[in-house]
Each structure stands twice: as structure tokens, then as C-alpha cells.
């Protein structure tokens, strides 16, 4: 049976924990709004970009001179997995769910006899994957110093990926990130970025015949690397929003749990306080009776 002093200490420690989680929740809520705004802002660019690129790719696809980024290397032996996770923990199952999806993929690819390489973005995923797949790591992008996620960060990741592709280090690249659905639900997603895949636009009625300057293929060669950067950028933004959403709900839960715990401890504290008083009374009364 803990003493009154012990209980008091525990109550005050849980109270300060609650204060911290509450503060973290509010910070996450503010950051989430900013992250969502950023994701919203980037949407028009991404949509239009993919539309144009999709149309272009559709018209060039099939020709033997199609750029490698679109047509692939013709093999699919070496897979590069770009795993995007958070730089910080305390965000519920956010990091673990991305890592879990990655593991499933790695095992599947290995079972099919492919070579797997892993590029990590964000510290947490790297830590979790290190034990099992440490030997597969080919690189790491550190974003812990980045305050506000910009296109420049996406570009540097893309540059890294493209340089490896040019060097023939891999045939297929897939990015792993969490798609933001709502504050309480984020879906871990795998998306293939090299060779580029587009949802084929099948609205033949509206398609306009464009003049291309310079030629279609030159434009495509110019746009495809940008397409990779754009996809990475939107994945990073989604991921940032998801991270904050996950952290917000995790911290909300923690705050509520702390509240429950305080209630329980307070009841216990009051009970034992009463027990002490009763004991003292009994002692006084029996002392008086003995006289």
C-alpha cells in the first residue's frame, strides 16, 4: 500500500505529463494546419503537371526512343525503396505502419529473387529498419534541420534518386509514405516513381492537339526528372500532414489517459486519507475508554 506522500507525488507527476502531452497536441494541431495548407497549395501544380505529363507520355509511349525514366531499363532486378518517415517519434503508429509496409515489400521482392536497396528519408524509419535490413541501406536523407518543407528538399531527394538511376544502380524505384486521409486515419502507401507511371487520361473527347516546342521527346526528357521531384514533393507534404495528424491524435489519447489516471489516483488518495483519519479516531477513542 503506497503511502499518502507517494500518491501525492504520483498525482503531481501524472499532472505534469498531462500538461506536456496537451501542449504537444496543440503544437501538432497548429503544425497540421500549416502542413495541410502546404499540401493544398501544391495540389494545382501537381495536378496540372501530371495531366500534361500523362498526355505527353501517352503519345510517346511505345516508341523505342522513349526516355529511360518512362520506359524503364527493360529489367526489374534491382529495386530501390525510398522510405519516408518522420524525424521524431511520439506520433502513434505513424512510423511503424510505414515501416511495416516496407517490410512486407522487401520480403515479397526478396522472395521473388530481386535485389533490394533502401534509401531512407527521416531518422525514425532508418532506426527501425536498421536491425533487419541495415545491409541494404544505400543512403539517408536527413531532414531534421529543415524547418519548413520546401520544393528544394524534394529536389535534393529527387536528384539523389536520379543520379543513382543514371548510374544504373536500380531499375525500379518505389516511394513509401503515409497518405493523409484525416486526423485519425493515415494510409501507408507505396508508389512507383521510376519508371514513371501515370493514370492514363482516357478523355479522348477533350484532348487538344498541342504544338510542342522543342519536340515532344525533348520536352519529355526535361519534364520527367521534374515529375519525379514533384511526386516526391507531394509525398513529403502528405507525409508531413500525416505525421502531425498522427501525433495530434496520439497526444490527444495520452492526455485523456493521463486525466483518467489522475482521477483514479485522486480517489485512491482520498480513500487512504480517510482510512488514516479513521485509524487516528479509533486510537483516540480506545485510548479514552481505557482510562
Amino acid at each position, binding site marked *: 500500500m503506497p503511502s499518502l506522500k507517494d500518491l501525492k507525488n504520483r498525482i503531481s507527476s501524472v499532472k505534469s505529463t498531462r500538461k506536456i502531452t496537451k501542449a504537444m497536441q496543440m503544437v501538432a494541431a497548429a503544425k497540421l494546419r500549416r502542413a495541410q495548407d*502546404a499540401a493544398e*497549395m*501544391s495540389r*494545382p*501544380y*501537381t495536378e*496540372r*503537371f501530371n495531366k*500534361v505529363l500523362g498526355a*505527353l507520355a501517352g503519345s510517346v509511349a511505345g516508341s523505342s526512343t522513349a526516355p529511360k525514366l518512362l520506359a524503364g531499363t527493360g529489367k526489374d532486378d534491382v529495386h530501390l525503396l525510398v522510405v519516408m518517415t518522420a524525424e521524431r517519434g511520439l506520433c502513434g503508429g505513424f512510423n511503424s505502419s510505414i515501416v511495416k509496409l516496407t517490410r512486407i515489400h522487401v520480403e515479397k521482392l526478396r522472395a521473388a529473387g530481386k535485389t533490394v536497396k533502401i534509401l531512407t528519408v527521416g531518422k525514425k524509419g532508418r532506426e527501425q529498419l536498421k536491425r533487419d535490413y541495415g545491409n541494404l541501406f544505400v543512403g539517408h536523407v536527413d531532414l531534421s534541420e529543415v524547418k519548413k518543407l*520546401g*520544393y528544394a528538399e*524534394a529536389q535534393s531527394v529527387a536528384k539523389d534518386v536520379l543520379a543513382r538511376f543514371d548510374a544504373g544502380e536500380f531499375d525500379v524505384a518505389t516511394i513509401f509514405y503515409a497518405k493523409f486521409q484525416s486526423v485519425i486515419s493515415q494510409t501507408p502507401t507505396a508508389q512507383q516513381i521510376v519508371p514513371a507511371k501515370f493514370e492514363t487520361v482516357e478523355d479522348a473527347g477533350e484532348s*487538344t*492537339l*498541342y*504544338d*510542342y*516546342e*522543342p519536340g515532344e521527346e*525533348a*520536352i519529355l526528357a*526535361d*519534364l520527367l526528372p*521534374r515529375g519525379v521531384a*514533384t511526386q516526391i*514533393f507531394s509525398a513529403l507534404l502528405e507525409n508531413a500532414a500525416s505525421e502531425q495528424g498522427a501525433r495530434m491524435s496520439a497526444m490527444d489519447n495520452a492526455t485523456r489517459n493521463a486525466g483518467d489516471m489522475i482521477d483514479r489516483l485522486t480517489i485512491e488518495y482520498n480513500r487512504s486519507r480517510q482510512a488514516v483519519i479513521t485509524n487516528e479516531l479509533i486510537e483516540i477513542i480506545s485510548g479514552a475508554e481505557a482510562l
Partner: protein
Amino acid sequence: MAETMQFDLVSPERSLMSAQVTAVSIPGAEGDLTAMPMHAPMITTLRPGILKVETEKGTQEFVVTGGFAEIGASVTVLAEKAVPHADMDQATYEALVQEAHESYLSLKAADTGNEPGRVAEAAKLLQDMVAVGTHIGLDPKQPNL
């Protein structure tokens, strides 16, 4: 009254402008061009330069570093980086030139000779960037090539 068309200038990070305009001057990769309403549909890539947007209320200028433009019933410019002319200062500009210079140097260093186009491209990008500086009245920090 002059005819107008819808014009959008978007960068990956945000949408910079969306308005009815009468004409847009675009720094195309193969030369400048001006798109007015009813322009033939075309897609062109951009080189670093000045994007001039003429609306009925006046003219706005943006410095763009690259990207592409889609001209159809409406004009959409997807710029990698776009800065309103008024916001362009020496520091921002120098950072851009610096970036172009670095990518040129790194390509040149990595040049193995089997892809000569890329180094030339980077050099051209750098030159365009420097030309932009002269054009907008900033001191074009001449990098030594």
C-alpha cells in the same frame, strides 16, 4: 474591349497568380513568345527569364527559373521557382546564380564525355540566369567559367 483569357502561374509550393489577362510573354526555351487569346495550343519549356503578364489593369512581371507553359484555351505556367519582379533582390538573385553555377560545376566535374549535352545545358542555364540579372537591373555576379 480586348479579349481576355484565364491565366494561372503556379509553382510547386503555391499558386502565385490566377487572373484574366490579355497577353502573356513567356521566355520559351527556343525563344520568347507572347500568347494572346486564341493562341494555337502548344506546350513549351521555359528558360530562366522574365514572365510578363498583361492584364487590363496593368502589367505584372515575374522572374521564373524554369518549368513549362501550357497554352490552350487558357494559359498555365508551371514554374519551378517564380518570384515577383518587385520581390527579387540581389541576395535572392545571387543565390539562384550560385545554384546554377554549382550544378554546372558538379556536372562538369562528373563529365565523362559520353553525355556532352548536359554540361552544355547547365552552362546555358547559367548564362540565362546571368542574363536575367542584367535585364532586371541587378548586378550580375559574373561567375568565372
